[in-house]
């Protein structure tokens, strides 16, 4: 209990002191995960929409594959990227290992199936009438598809939030391909591992609290963007 209270105190202290190293680590965490999310979104939203709307040979298999990869263990994603980028691997010449770029790549591997799969589900949850209404009002095919994406936006935003949460909080991939190098590839999660290993439990907890606050902040911003009222969060009345 002592450790936990101490950790909360330490965390607040760390934030207030604006420790430069901590700021650097936090910024890197955000940089890496937001970049990865951006790429995952740019690739995943169209991919998910395509999977949801277009019927083609192998669609069912691809969908199932996407759902499976949604649960890809971060450390495995890290390992795969590591093997590719390692000196012994096919892409070794680019010397990308232990750089933030490698971390982004690994996180894209994690985030893409998530965004793609959840977008597909969000679009599939819409009924035929969405397209019919748009088409009957004279929208072009592209216009109607964009409208479908727009109508599914709540689900898509949920997909992005979920993905970001997962990326910012994971440690397996970034540790593997980043190497936790101070000043270069050290992020919040790998810092927690290090501090714990060094025996600084309360400092580790403090950093963890910062991580939580970050996640909370991101969630707030995204919900603000959503702009809809919170009537979705109301309960079903059981009378």
């Amino acid at each position, binding site marked *: 209990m002592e450790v936990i209270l101490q950790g909360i105190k330490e965390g607040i202290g760390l934030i207030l002191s604006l420790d430069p190293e901590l700021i650097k680590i936090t910024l890197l965490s955000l940089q890496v995960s937001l970049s990865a999310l951006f790429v995952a979104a740019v690739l995943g939203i169209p991919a998910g929409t395509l999977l949801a709307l277009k019927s083609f040979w192998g669609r069912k298999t691809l969908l199932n594959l996407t759902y499976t990869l949604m649960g890809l263990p971060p450390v495995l994603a890290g390992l795969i990227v590591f093997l590719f980028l390692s000196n012994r691997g096919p892409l070794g010449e680019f010397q990308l290992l232990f750089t933030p770029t490698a971390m982004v790549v690994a996180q894209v591997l994690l985030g893409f199936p998530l965004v793609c799969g959840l977008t597909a589900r969000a679009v599939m949850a819409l009924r035929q*009438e969405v397209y*019919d*209404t748009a088409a*009957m*009002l004279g929208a*072009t095919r592209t216009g109607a598809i964009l*409208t479908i994406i727009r*109508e599914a936006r*709540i689900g898509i935003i949920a997909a992005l939030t979920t993905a970001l949460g997962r990326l910012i909080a994971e440690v397996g991939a970034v540790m593997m391909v980043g190497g936790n190098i101070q000043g270069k590839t050290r992020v919040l999660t790998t810092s927690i591992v290090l501090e714990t290993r060094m025996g600084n439990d309360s400092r580790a907890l403090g950093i963890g609290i910062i991580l939580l606050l970050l996640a909370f902040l991101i969630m707030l911003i995204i919900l603000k963007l959503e702009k809809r*009222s919170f009537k979705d969060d109301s309960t079903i009345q059981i009378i």
Partner: protein
Amino acid sequence: MTALFRLSNLSKTYGERRVLNVEQLEISPGHIYAIMGPNGSGKTTLLRILSLLTFNTAGQLEVFGEQINWSKSQLLRLRRQMAMVTQSSYMFEGSVYYNVAYGLRARKISERETKIRVQESLALLGMLDFMNHPANNLSGGEKQKVAIARALAVNPRVLFLDEPTSNIDPTSSVDIENYVKRINEEHSITIILVTHKIFQTRKLAKETFLMWDGRIIEQGPTRNLFHDPQDTRTRRFLKGEY
């Protein structure tokens, strides 16, 4: 006067089931037409084919004098001359204004003109006060009125209505029936109405088609159909036995 729609030997089959089989059908512009029949008689299917939302399996379909080849450009061009309101019309996420403006924006009409036409349509349906409300917060009746305004704003030649008042309160129903009549009379928009309500048909439709098991078994001026039905099945339908 060219027929708006001309069907010959038109059928729609789902797997083994043939749900629609129309040998001959011609719809001329100007009036309100009603399509009635028991559930599963193919009314909605016919409507969806006429509005080019669903392919026919076989037969000829001619819309506004054109043979339908289902090409993207043709569909776009023809659909932009039609509009549809369904039983519980889907409202896009956003304000009433956004919904009513949707079709106009799709046609790349200027924001200025869009605003005018949106306000006109909403005013016609008595929904102008709701212009900035979130569309999905409205009641069923209000949503249907917005749906009609939305369809009206794009100035269609034909307006399809698929049981537009089945799900809403009687007062709004009557309102909508009156609006429909006005739209037809004042704006010369042809109306094709699928409905369950006999009173509605008698009130609004000049000509009625009765469907049964995918076929049109009787058609003609509404008064005649109700007064003196030729087909026994029509008689049964009117009595409510089916």
